[in-house]
């Protein structure tokens, strides 16, 4: 019975390490999705001259249908913003964007700085001319690229570290208490 308990504890610690590594990978994936959506948004605004609701609906549908689970959250966010823009036409866009960001699930694998960059994007979209839209989106893309570059650089070593630490801690428990 004692060995079974120890085995469970070790397994839990190992799983914790893998979970941390998975979270890191998911953050990279989510940031990548938001980045890709911003690229499409730029194209829809500059090339197709679409209004924000039109662009958000099109991109949101594409990304919510093509992904599942947490990865679909970004697409669903665009769709929620678009729906509220239709329903509450008189409300400022930045307010709707911010309020819908607050509805992200608690376990969304994005850090504070990722969310701040996303919020800043919403604060400046729709304002002034097309060049300003382009610059706003390009600024967001730059920030996302910087974050992704850092995350990707660190990802291999971090995920290895988390998994190794998890396994080492599991072995340590086994050796210590067996």
């Amino acid at each position, binding site marked *: 019975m004692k060995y079974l308990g120890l085995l469970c504890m070790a397994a839990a610690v190992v799983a914790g390490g893998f979970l941390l590594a998975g979270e890191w990978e998911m953050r990279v994936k989510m940031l990548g999705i938001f980045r890709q959506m911003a690229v499409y948004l730029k194209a829809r605004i500059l090339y197709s001259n679409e*209004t*924000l609701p039109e662009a958000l609906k099109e991109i949101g549908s594409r990304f919510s249908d093509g992904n599942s689970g947490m990865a679909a959250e970004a697409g669903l966010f665009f769709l929620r913003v678009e729906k509220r*823009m239709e329903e509450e036409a*008189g409300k400022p866009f930045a307010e709707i964007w911010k309020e819908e960001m607050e509805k992200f699930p608690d376990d969304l694998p994005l850090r504070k700085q990722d969310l701040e960059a996303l919020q800043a994007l919403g604060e400046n979209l*729709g304002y002034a*001319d097309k060049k300003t839209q382009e610059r706003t989106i390009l600024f967001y893309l730059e920030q996302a690229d910087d974050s992704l570059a850092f995350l990707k650089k660190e990802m291999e070593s971090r995920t290895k570290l988390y998994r190794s630490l998890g396994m080492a801690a599991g072995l340590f428990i086994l050796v210590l208490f067996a």
Partner: protein
Amino acid sequence: MNAEIFEQMLRNAVSDMKMIREIRIRAGKTVMIYTDTGEKETEILADQELIRGIIEICSRHSLYAYEREISQGFLTIRGGHRVGIAGKAVVEDGHVRTVRDLSSLNIRVAHEVKGCAKNVLPYLMDGETFLDTLLISPPGAGKTTLLRDLIRELSYGGTWGAGKNVSVVDERSEIAACFGGIAQCDLGPRTDVMDGCPKSEGMLMMLRSMAPQVLAVDEAGGEGEILAMKYGMNCGCRILATVHGADVGDIMKRPAWRELAEEKVFSRYVVLSGVPGPGTIVGIYDVNFQRMDKRN
């Protein structure tokens, strides 16, 4: 005042919102409403915040998407309604780039009056052939409404003959009132719409791509537009166009139109007036400017 309060006050001021033809909003002045029965001054005092709010709503928080329209002094919103703007023009290289500090709005409500072309159409036909027609009308006298219904009648067909393939170049999205690529107004089953496209370019595109029997265009008059209309006629396509003017004599003062009239390019001229109400037919004239609608 924000736009939501304005909407509520407007509802209180007018018993039937469907009666509204035009709303004029000027910063610092009371809002004026024009209905079929005349002008009505409301108690709503407009300010720049209200004008900004209305423009935000009209542009769906996407002013950038209306850059071209705003530089021309108006934007067309969902439903084909036209919002005229006035304010401080920002000029660059001799051209208006945008308009800021908006001080006035003129919201013109688009109306679809099905059947209003029924009495006009027989004069525009030669057997089953539609004749090249020019609708002449001052602003706000129902020229686009009549054009829309003529397109619908031609597309559906009727006792006068089978329906025709009609191509519409709708530069300002007022004829078809397209939203998301779908025409909000009924233009008939044989109508193709090129939405938001400059007229001269759009006419040539439609001639090449859709092989129309009738090509319809609103507010023609530019050099390129006249050339495109002539090209269309030479291709065997019939033209249905509108132009601003009080009467036939009015357009004859403009060299390009006088030339067209002298060349007998159009076979029919329909003159409209806003008095006593929009859509009043002043006269229908043949190629020699002989009045036709009083012969019967």
